[in-house]
């Protein structure tokens, strides 16, 4: 007995119509899901490009006040590797990166949370002015992106660091794009071949390329002068 008998032909268009309806519904749901995914991805872009900066701006101004308070304190906590993680202890000024790096707080630690508040200090490295490597990290894109214009830095640029004891002036010397695992860049004397004229150096690290982070960009500088706190800020800063 054939399934497609003559008396069934009257039913067939209805079945086909029903299937078409189901297919249309299915395709419609897939379409709605795809549009939803697209909207969520757009929202994620907005979160990254806009919202993280809004949040970071608030965090940075709180940390700046904390740094100012610490710098003004008459009996500041000693600046050493035991300095509490997440606390601000210095302010940085880089005329080339004004206004984003102008009274920018430097905090102890380089975890993601700390880096939304300013520059992070690798806790195991030297403190400002010390022999060794005063190594810092900062965002170049999103989360306040203080180092957004890192690519504009040039050898010879000045970097000023204010702590409770002094104003330290560093001069940038050499830079290099390195791998994310290049931990050597924040060690004392990381680039012997550069023959840096001092063993008191500074390292700035950030991501490269700016909107991805499969590499790191390091810039090294050397300490060129120290002004005791009572002498005030270096006159060229015009503070």
């Amino acid at each position, binding site marked *: 007995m054939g399934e497609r008998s003559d008396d069934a032909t009257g039913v067939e268009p209805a079945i086909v119509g029903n299937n078409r309806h189901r297919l249309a519904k299915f395709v419609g749901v897939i379409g709605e899901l795809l549009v939803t995914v697209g909207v969520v991805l757009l929202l994620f872009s907005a979160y990254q490009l806009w919202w993280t900066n809004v949040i970071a701006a608030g965090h940075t101004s709180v940390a700046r006040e904390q740094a100012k308070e610490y710098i003004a304190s008459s009996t500041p906590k000693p600046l050493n590797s035991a300095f509490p993680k997440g606390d601000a202890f210095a302010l940085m000024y880089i005329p080339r990166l004004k206004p984003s790096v102008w009274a920018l707080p430097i905090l102890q630690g*380089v975890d993601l949370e700390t880096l939304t508040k300013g520059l992070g200090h690798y806790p195991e490295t030297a403190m400002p002015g010390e022999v060794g490597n005063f190594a810092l990290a900062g965002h170049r894109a999103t989360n306040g992106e203080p180092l957004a214009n890192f690519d504009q830095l040039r050898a010879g640029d000045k970097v000023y660091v204010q702590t409770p004891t002094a104003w330290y002036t560093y001069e940038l010397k050499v830079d290099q794009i390195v791998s994310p695992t290049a931990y050597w860049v924040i060690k004392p004397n990381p680039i012997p071949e550069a023959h840096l004229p001092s063993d008191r150096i500074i390292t700035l690290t950030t991501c490269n390329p700016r909107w*991805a982070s499969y590499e790191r960009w390091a810039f090294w500088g050397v300490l060129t002068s120290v002004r005791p706190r009572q002498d005030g800020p270096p006159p060229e800063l015009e503070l």
Partner: protein
Amino acid sequence: MYGALWRKLPGPNVVKVVELLVMLAVVVVLLFAWVFPWATVHLPIDNVTVDSSSQSMLMPDARLRQVME
């Protein structure tokens, strides 16, 4: 999907629009406050440090080994 949601929402059309906006706001807040921060940590973006986490944990070991040798 969204058609069914629209039909299930109670009230006249104006009320439905308000209900949808509230639901949308809740979803956006959930995304911005929890989902996106969580995703960021798990995505290879926003990383600016040379690998200190693994290395700094390795370093004391290395020092210890030197002392012991």
